């Protein structure tokens, strides 16, 4: 099994997207890069169609919420190159008032429900998505429950306050 290293992978990305790639990390050997929403589809297309990299498999799309930061909502893509047996994680952060990102359904049919799930829980609007509706929650729900401002439990409950745990 030929396997390309993360350096080679990063170099071939940087030859085309040098200025667009910000923040490169490698937690537990998985190359993680950050980019902007203007370049995300170009980057995904490049990764998918490049003859050497061949990231043909979309493993997952999900999101994360960091409140009180400049760009609180992050959309996270996990891709897998089955030929090279290497994975990559791509993050795109967007501002709170403008949670829009182009859809990846143009590249993978499987992105459809993953994006619906991300919309359902985080309110990320995937522009160009063929059928962006809620998927697991009820249709008339008005909030996006996985955002951090929505507490899981009754906020009046006092037995789980941090000071009981010395914090």
């Amino acid at each position, binding site marked *: 099994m030929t396997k390309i290293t993360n350096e080679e992978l990063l170099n071939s990305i940087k030859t085309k997207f040098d200025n667009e790639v910000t923040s490169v990390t490698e*937690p*537990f050997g*998985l190359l*993680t890069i950050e980019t902007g929403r203007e370049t995300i589809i170009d980057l995904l297309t490049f990764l998918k169609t490049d003859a050497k990299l061949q990231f*043909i*498999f*979309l*493993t*997952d799309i*999900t999101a*994360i*919420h960091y409140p009180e930061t400049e760009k609180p909502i992050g959309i*996270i893509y*996990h891709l897998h190159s*089955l030929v090279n*047996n290497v*994975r990559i*994680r791509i993050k795109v952060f967007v501002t709170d008032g403008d949670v829009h990102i182009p859809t990846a359904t143009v590249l*993978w*049919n*499987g992105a*459809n*429900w*993953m994006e619906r*799930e991300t919309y359902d*829980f985080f309110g990320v609007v995937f522009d160009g998505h063929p059928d962006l509706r809620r*998927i*697991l*929650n*009820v249709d008339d729900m008005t909030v996006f*429950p*996985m955002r951090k401002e929505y507490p*899981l*439990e009754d906020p009046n409950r006092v037995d789980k306050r941090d000071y009981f*745990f*010395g914090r």
Partner: protein
Amino acid sequence: MRNHPVFTDNDPQTELSTLNLGPTHPATHGVFQNVLQLDGERIVSGVSTIGYIHRAFEKISEHRPFYQITTLTDRMNYCSSPINNMGWHMTVEKLLGIQTPKRVDYLRVIIMELARISDHIICNGVLGVDTGAFTGFLYMMKYREDIYEIYEEICGSRLTTNIGRIGGFERNFNHIAFDKTRKFLTEFPKALKEFENLFSRNRIFVDRTKGVAAVDAETALSYSWTGPLLRAAGVDYDVRVMEPYSSYQDFDFEVPVGTNGDVYDRFLVRNEEMWQSMRLIEQALAKIAKEPSDIFHADVPDFYLPPKEEVYNNMEALIYHFKIVMGEIPTPNSEVYHAVEGANGELGFYLVNDGGRTPYRLHFRRPSFINYQMYAPMSRGMLLSDAIINMSSLNVIAGELDA
């Protein structure tokens, strides 16, 4: 996929009937709703609605220490919950940098492969039921019971197992568990062979399944299919081989692949996987015999609960017990993606940790959720009865679909 020869979209003569297949219908084996437009018995279009048993596991996970999340993973694919449990333990171990002893890895392989067999027994048995043969299902159910008895010996429960702990197992396997596993290995091959003989050359079964819901490799990949479904379409992607976890690299086994990606190929792939699982269990038993028999967990006092007698009589054990239960141990500030080969495909755990007592964000890549989205598009043009067996062969588990 077949196209109906008579019907066209613009035909004003056609009166379509609407059929609500589900949410509770005996033929769907779970809570699945599909609103189908039918022309006679042909499906013209369908819309899937899911989420009937959504329990917000990802949100709950953000409020629980790591060891309390295991019970949530049980309830995803409840036909093979040990695989989910192990996948979660291994994710946390990867984050914390815990190296498990070889014996723990091999014990886990036994449990995971037993779970895979029990899951495939259900799926292939139900496929028989939906094509009109109840015998195979009832006959094989006895062996699922045998597997559940092995679970009982190890962890005390049967369906939602909560088996194992971070770092290993809560207690060592007793000799009854090993005896039952060996007994299973001697009895099950005969039954599986008979089961195969009942179906794989049965004229009625072959006619009902061959060529039905055929999916080519390219389509399967574009829909992010994994597991037996992708392998039936001819792609030999198996997480156990590509990214070995729990010492799968020490084992000798084969990954069966199909050619047509139809219901029949999925049946054959699952059957062959059961044979391979038995090979894996046999090898694991042989390897365990060479390991010291008293090791069943890694030496990680920060995360592995001490025995109760020590908690009562030993100061250090009491401190560890308290710190673990209260979630006081600092954890790395990092993120990790770990995938295991679940019975339905790649079961992934994406864990973002900020060093607190609970995950900052936990996302489950649930194979059923991703596999099922193709169901409505691929049902177009299919006979209703074919769509039913197609759903059985997708082996969509409602708990994993909705999480």
